[in-house]
């Protein structure tokens, strides 16, 4: 989001500024961490244990966020190429290559400040096979301690007691002792409970914001805007009072927009009339983010629900961090992230989104990098089309590798999709 709304939406800017402060603050903390004697943990977004890491005073570094921030700043392309020059295959996930390329270029973070060597890699292996290889590759560079948290996949569509026990045991017997040793801080479960109280509050507000898109017109864009809304809750801030405050502010702002019957704000200002309501599956493209979004808002297309905004927790289906059951709740959190769900569950969820959010159809943005999301998406598209009777569409881009964003192709696809929706509506009306 940007500041195009100055004057008409002062409070909206409040949440934006708050988020900006959070992010900048974290990068600054990372840059100073070692100088201030603080330990640094690197970890992944899906199923991260931010609250637990905070119990040991770790400063948190999230390589996926560095990659996407570099993507937004158009720096990632060179990093990806650098990694490929060093022998990494053009076929594999560009997040990994952007991260390794950044390291090769001196490990200067997206904000221009140096990123520290992590004291520990917390390999939360949730919902993506690549994570394991990614941290093995990073570990090879830093030769630093790595703690693996293996989160089993919901292959049969449920979290079994065996899966939960396994994750809890790893946290108790493996992760916590390792984090204690590396940080020198003793684990205090009451401290964890306090953070989880904050998390649950923020999650309530996040869900409220995301579900505001059920209204017509939707006051938010739940994909392009949504990626900002999930930021604090999915990364280094979940569990902090600052994140809770961010969500309370955001909720107030969205409530006001809703009361005023307004649509989403876009980087180019207020969105015009809402003409199409879409559900989107898959991560966004970061290298051409604004351009991509523009193809939607210019046409009056608003995304009312997305699955990418569930990669760090499917809170809208009821999960909340639970301070009364801290470790079990952390385990369930990891197990329940979107990419840890099997395809039948994903198909059900998408169908439900199309119906509950009164969408015109499902659009899939298929990401070359990401087999975890992408393998099987063509079947998902068919399933959801069949079940809802609403037309779907498929575009292909990449996360942070600009070579795989073909603006002309994507635009043509989208335009014909919007046309198809209109025609279908007209036929229906006739």
């Amino acid at each position, binding site marked *: 989001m940007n500041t195009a709304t100055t004057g008409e939406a002062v409070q909206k800017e409040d949440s934006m500024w708050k988020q900006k402060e959070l992010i900048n603050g974290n990068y600054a903390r990372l840059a100073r961490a070692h100088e201030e004697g603080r330990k640094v943990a690197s970890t992944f977004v899906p199923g991260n244990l931010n609250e637990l890491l905070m119990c040991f005073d770790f400063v948190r570094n999230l390589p996926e966020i560095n990659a996407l921030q570099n993507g937004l700043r158009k720096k990632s392309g060179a990093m990806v190429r650098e990694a490929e020059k060093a022998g990494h295959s053009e*076929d594999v996930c560009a997040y990994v290559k952007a991260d390794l390329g950044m390291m090769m270029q001196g490990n200067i973070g997206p904000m221009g400040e140096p990123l520290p060597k992590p004291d520990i890699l917390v390999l939360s292996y949730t919902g993506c096979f690549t994570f*394991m290889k990614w941290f093995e590759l990073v570990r090879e560079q830093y030769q630093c301690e790595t703690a693996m948290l*293996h989160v*089993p996949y919901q*292959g049969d569509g449920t979290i079994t007691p065996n899966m939960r026990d396994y994750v809890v045991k790893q946290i108790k017997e493996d992760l916590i002792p390792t984090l204690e040793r590396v940080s020198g801080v003793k684990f205090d479960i009451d401290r964890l409970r306090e953070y989880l109280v904050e998390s649950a509050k923020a999650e309530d507000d996040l869900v409220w914001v995301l579900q505001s898109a059920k209204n017509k017109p939707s006051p938010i864009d739940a994909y392009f805007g949504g990626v900002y809304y999930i930021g604090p809750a999915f990364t280094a801030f979940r569990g902090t009072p600052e994140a809770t405050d961010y969500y309370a502010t955001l909720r107030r702002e969205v409530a006001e927009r809703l009361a005023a019957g307004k649509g989403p704000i876009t980087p180019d200002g207020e969105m015009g009339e809402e003409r199409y309501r879409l559900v989107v599956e898959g991560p966004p493209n970061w290298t051409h983010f604004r351009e991509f979004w523009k193809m939607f808002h210019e046409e009056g297309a608003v995304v009312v629900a997305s699955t990418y905004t569930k990669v760090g927790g499917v809170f809208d289906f009821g999960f909340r961090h639970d301070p009364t059951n801290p470790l079990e709740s952390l385990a369930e959190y990891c197990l329940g992230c979107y990419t840890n769900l099997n395809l039948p569950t994903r198909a059900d969820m998408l169908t439900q989104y199309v119906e509950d959010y009164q969408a015109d159809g499902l659009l899939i943005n298929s990401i070359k990098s990401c087999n975890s999301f992408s*393998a099987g998406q063509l079947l998902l598209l068919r399933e959801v089309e069949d079940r809802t009777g609403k037309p779907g569409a498929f575009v292909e881009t990449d996360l942070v590798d600009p070579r795989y964003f073909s603006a002309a192709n994507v635009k043509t696809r989208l335009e014909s999709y919007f046309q198809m929706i209109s025609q279908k509506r007209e036929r229906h009306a006739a």
Partner: protein
Amino acid sequence: MSTAPIIERCREIFEDLDFKVVRAWKDAEPGRKVMGYMPFYVPREIIHAAGMLPVGVLGGGDQLEVIHGDAYYQSYICRIPRSTIELGLTGRLDVLDGMLFPSICDVIRNLSGMWKLMFKDKYAHYFDVPQNFDDGVGGAFYIEELKILCRDFEEISGREVSDEALRRSIAVYNKNRRLVNQLYDLRIREPWKASTTDVYLILRAAMVLPVEEHSDLVREYLAAAQDEEKPMRDNCRIVLCGTFCEQPPLGLLRSIEMAGCYVVDDDFMLVTRWLLDDVPLEGDPLENLSDAYLHHSGETAAKYVPDVKTKGLHLVEAVKRSGAEGVIFASPSFCDPALLDRPMLQNVLDAHGIPYTSFKYAENSGQMQPIREQAGTFADSIKLWSAA
């Protein structure tokens, strides 16, 4: 007896995309059930203990025309899931009563869910293996997962998976693994006697034949191969790495051999050799299978290596054990596990002064000339290097 008729039989099995051998086994007795599985590892002992036939499903190779399967996958996803779907949609896998999808990568993981959506009347199960190797943590988890298999297979087969049955099956597979290891040993000793295409075809037969029958076949081959006089060539010796899932076309293996390389170790069909020692017969069989997985199993890109210092050493060991002079990385295009792992393995080889070369393939690659040239150049450089 010569090896030729044995290999001919294996080739027929390999070329038969309709799983006739499996159908014949199933038809031989009413009520027989068959359980399919994909790479890289499932405990076949449990399938066997339920009286079912474990059948490895490795895609369609270069013989199958993929017509429907491509509609399910974007161009940047490897070939094996699409040809496997093709096999399913064309009814060739009807003979299976279920499919297991091991935790090897996100593509096969997601295929498990696609299978549930596409073949609703068939059993489809994602089989998770632990990445934590403590008995009380990963082991406890794994044993419960094995119990799920036992329970599900009992239901499908109508036969109890008793401890006794498990022990019997473990013994049968121990024997088969020993024989397969002997085959690998023979190839290390006298690679001109057991060519890599032979070894590959014999392992392919292991994917569909009842294990007892396969053990007989390996035994016969070993006896015949020992006695056969075949010319020894001035080839270099290499380890082939990266072929653990999507299959290299047979032509590719032949090309490597014809380019002057003896393959003396590889990662074909790891399920046949994944457990490194005999699984003990005394004690609790599931605990024994778990212990074998956690502490006595191989390494591949799908398995986490907790200690950075040991990462990649399995490959160095394989080179030493087999007396190889270099490594050829042959990875399927778009294979995340193989391609993400490769740079780390290459670094370890660099540190040990072991030369390597790398290329990619697809199960339906047709053009072998570039691969032959690359393997030939590699073989020449190794010879020059060792002569210097």
